[in-house]
């Protein structure tokens, strides 16, 4: 009986940890998701990368839209330095039609995305990360063959007006990694659109 209670207890802790997603320092599991060009993309497709900027984002969310150009600029600036952007749409298009795979293709074409825009069609990847909203950034750092989470949170501190930004959290975090330092802050928060799932 005692073992049963103990194992239920441990299971509860374990599942709790699972549902909370990644913390700073955790190893990020690889994924394989469909890109808007019809190919699948994994982190292992980037053997030369020093890190990866994983951004959960989508088409419909006003906050996500406000950051589209800034994400393109980040990719242009940091891809050549070894930190490419991978964007992932975690939303169920049955809940928000504007976030369908076809609409993703359209949006990427209109805006001229320079990075892969992947579809988490089975909604299996975002819970592993613990993403709760769009946009939600995970900056990963390569060590050996693995990627580890180095920064979680916001891109900067003013979604509404890029010219009024006073803290470029994500850029500062990338630059910290380039100097072999730990990002500070390593975690920030921003208002975002909840990730859309069907009610169970």
């Amino acid at each position: 009986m005692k073992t049963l209670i103990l194992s239920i207890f441990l299971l509860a802790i374990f599942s709790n940890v699972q549902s909370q997603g990644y913390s700073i320092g955790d190893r990020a599991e690889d994924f394989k998701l469909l890109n808007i060009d019809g190919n699948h993309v994994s982190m292992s497709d980037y053997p030369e990368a020093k890190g990866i900027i994983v951004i959960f984002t989508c088409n419909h969310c006003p906050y996500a839209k406000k950051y589209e150009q800034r994400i393109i600029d980040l990719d242009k600036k940091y891809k050549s330095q070894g930190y490419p952007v991978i964007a992932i749409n975690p939303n169920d298009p049955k809940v928000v039609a504007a976030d369908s795979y076809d609409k993703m293709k359209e949006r990427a074409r209109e805006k001229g995305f320079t990075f892969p825009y992947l579809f988490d069609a089975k909604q299996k990847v975002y819970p592993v990360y613990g993403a709760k909203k769009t946009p939600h950034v995970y900056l990963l750092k390569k060590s050996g063959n693995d990627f580890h989470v180095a920064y979680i949170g916001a891109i900067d501190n003013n979604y509404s007006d890029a010219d009024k930004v006073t803290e470029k959290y994500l850029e500062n975090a990338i630059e910290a990694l380039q100097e072999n330092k730990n990002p500070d802050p390593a975690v920030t928060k921003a208002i975002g659109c909840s990730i859309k799932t069907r009610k169970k």
Partner: protein
Amino acid sequence: MKIYYKLLIILFLFSFSASPKLEIKILNFDQFKSYLHKDDGQVYVINFWATWCKPCVEELPAFEKLNAEYRQNGVKVILVSLDEIELVETKLKSFISKKGLKSEVILLDDPDFNSWINQVNLKWTGAIPATLVYKGKNSSFHEGSLDYKQLLKMVKSKL
């Protein structure tokens, strides 16, 4: 015929002055903060939402019902809109009139989110909708949608 026109104009002007003008408080976080720490014996229900947020709009009737049924029993509902300040006149005000919202609406205009989200609640990741219910020091927080039953449960534990 002229008299009709004059009458129409007078009626038109009258209808304008008669309908109360919708005023919305626009606050930054420092100005808003006191709404999170009232200690006057009332239960405060603070809901963070936006007009474009589908799950937020879907749960508004539950908050309106709570406001209608419990306002007299010491429950104060405050709907904190995170809409952009530029859209207050064009979108937020017309939304409030169209839906006939009776609860108090405040616009929280402070895009430096990281500076204040943890001051609302440490558990909040920043996704909306999100709701804080408190009475004095006794508070509970919920991120995500609420139906009336769930909302009432949060409130009743504090009444």
